[in-house]
């Protein structure tokens, strides 16, 4: 299945001060089991740190996990920096405690997809496989 494509490279990051990392670690396991290469940022990363790693590691996907509710400010700053750095072909996805009513707002900032408390980890895997530049057939 992966033979014609290079392996998808994903940066999973925990921005802000939120320390809840069970979810992000579950997703990392799922992505690795699906054959992707995953880099984990660790807790409490600033937008600048996330951008720096994304560039250095040349990732196809940036996944942010936020359970503290403070996703809007982070999304605004991150998406602005992504445009500045010309990382537009990088797929940005958000996960965590995110209200449905805010999903449209996140997407209008350039976030590709949002996986909240209803999402199943298999949905995340197949979404990335189907939409990441490196993975798309």
């Amino acid at each position, binding site marked *: 299945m992966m033979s014609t494509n290079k392996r998808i490279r994903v940066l999973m990051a925990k921005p*802000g*001060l*939120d*320390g*809840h*990392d*069970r979810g992000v*670690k*579950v997703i*990392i*396991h*799922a992505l690795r089991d699906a054959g992707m290469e995953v880099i*984990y940022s*660790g*807790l*409490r990363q*600033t937008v600048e740190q996330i951008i720096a790693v994304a560039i250095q590691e040349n990732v196809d996907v940036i996944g942010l996990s936020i359970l*503290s*509710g*403070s996703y809007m*400010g*982070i999304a605004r700053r991150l998406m602005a920096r992504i445009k500045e750095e010309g990382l537009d072909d990088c797929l940005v996805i958000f996960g965590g*405690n995110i*209200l*449905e*009513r805010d999903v449209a707002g996140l997407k209008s900032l350039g976030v590709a997809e949002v996986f*909240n*408390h*209803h999402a*199943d*980890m*298999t949905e995340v895997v197949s979404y990335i496989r189907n939409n990441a530049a490196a993975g798309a057939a």
Partner: protein
Amino acid sequence: MAKSKDNGAKKERPVREAAYNSGKPVPVVYGPDAPDEGYREKLGAPGEYPYTRGIYPTMYRGSLWTMRQYAGFSTSADTNARFHFLLGNGQTGLSMAYDLPTQLGLDSDDEAAQDDVGRLGVAVDTAQDMADVFEGIPLDKVSVSHTINSTAAIIQAFWLIAAERQGVALDKLRGTFQNDMLKEYIGRGTWIFPPRPSMRLVADIIEYNAKHCPRVNAVSVSATHIAETGATLAQDVAFPILNALAYIRELTSRGLHVDDFVPTMSFHLSVGGGVGPFNLLESIGKLRAARRIWARTMKEKYGAKNPKTMQLKFSTGNCGSRMAAREPLNNIVRQTLYTLAAVMGGTRSVNMACFDEAFEIPSDESIRTALRIQQVIAHESGVADTVDPLAGGYAVEAVTDQVEEEIQAIVDDYESRGGIVPFIESGEIQRLLARQAYEHQRKIADGEQVWVGVNKFTSEEEDRMSAGEGLYEADDSALEKQKERLARVKAARDEGEVAAQLEKLARACESKENLVPYLMESARARLTVGEMTGVMRGAFGAYVEPSVV
């Protein structure tokens, strides 16, 4: 099981009257007519070693468990109002939530704090904020549980000073500081300093409180976060016990004996969290087994003479992981089961997740419902009328023994390899739990583990909560309000005094002295959380996470 006449139960305090539907009185406790050696060794009467049946002779017939729900948000004025609301609704203790910047030692005017000020708890920058949170709430009357860890020594200093200002003597204070740093590295993530200096701070608080405010639990060795990170039922008791033993070694290495300080240590055990299936009987058995293991460990391995050292004091709770986002009202039934397990397992205090926990900070309605669940169980179920009501049952005793064996095996394994700390430092425990959490999630995705309303018996019901209806609304004005408060405090300080105090604190950090008195002095001099944390970071360094996944 024979009918009993309260055998073995010493009546220390008057008990509440209770009657069956027939009108016949409910005995406080049932037990064997003629307790044999086996009974005394494994169970004992409630209030007697090894405390399997509870640490008090009369349990909830003497007094009910403390009912508290976690609360605190925005600024001190808002949290003060919420506390008055909860006390007015019959809540008997307070559980205080601090915002993430406060938990991480960042002042509200710090650039890194801007998204989170007052969001998940109240913002506390200085001793003044703490005094305002407890305006009109007498600290000698209400016990307060504080969910604070890395900055616990600073926050406790603020609270002690708030009491001082109310004219309350320190030895009259009742409460608990979570102050459980080792589990922060395992699961909760609000670490600042590396594990070793963090353990010194934990030990400083334990040593100070044992001497000056013995009714303020200096640590709440916590299972809930470990469970939520991905622990099994046995691990979620074994790992906290291992953490507690690490703290104990820190204090015994200062020349103290367990009887000097263990009575100020408490536990927060998990019911209904973790990975794998929930089982009501097994959860009850776990709490009973935990008491027996602790009593035996303290007496046999550490030479405890004081019964209070041997009595495992614990509150119980769970976090949100089993609170489903689909059909969230079903969570009320789940909370009821977990609360029932906690009560039948002999907890001293309960705080359970709320039914909207999967979405946001609980609303007034869901917090009230969580409290009502406890009140219904206390007053309408009868389970609070009989101490350790399941004791002697084939199933519960067998499962208690089984879980005890599982917990003890894990404790012995790590203890024989030098204790748990090196395995936290290397990230081994974190990686183990992450793997287990993933396996649990896969079983839910595969439908192997049933989650009603989520992967079985599902509906297409419209999800009013995801739309945001009825949910708690974050207060966007908290940041500006809090920054103004902080600026006012800073403007009124004598900068020379502040600089001198920071210098003094820095010297104390480099010494081996107990830091608590220095932090209290700093709090009186109106130093901020951020300033004190900055000094400590300078002395202790910053933690670098090992590979955790």
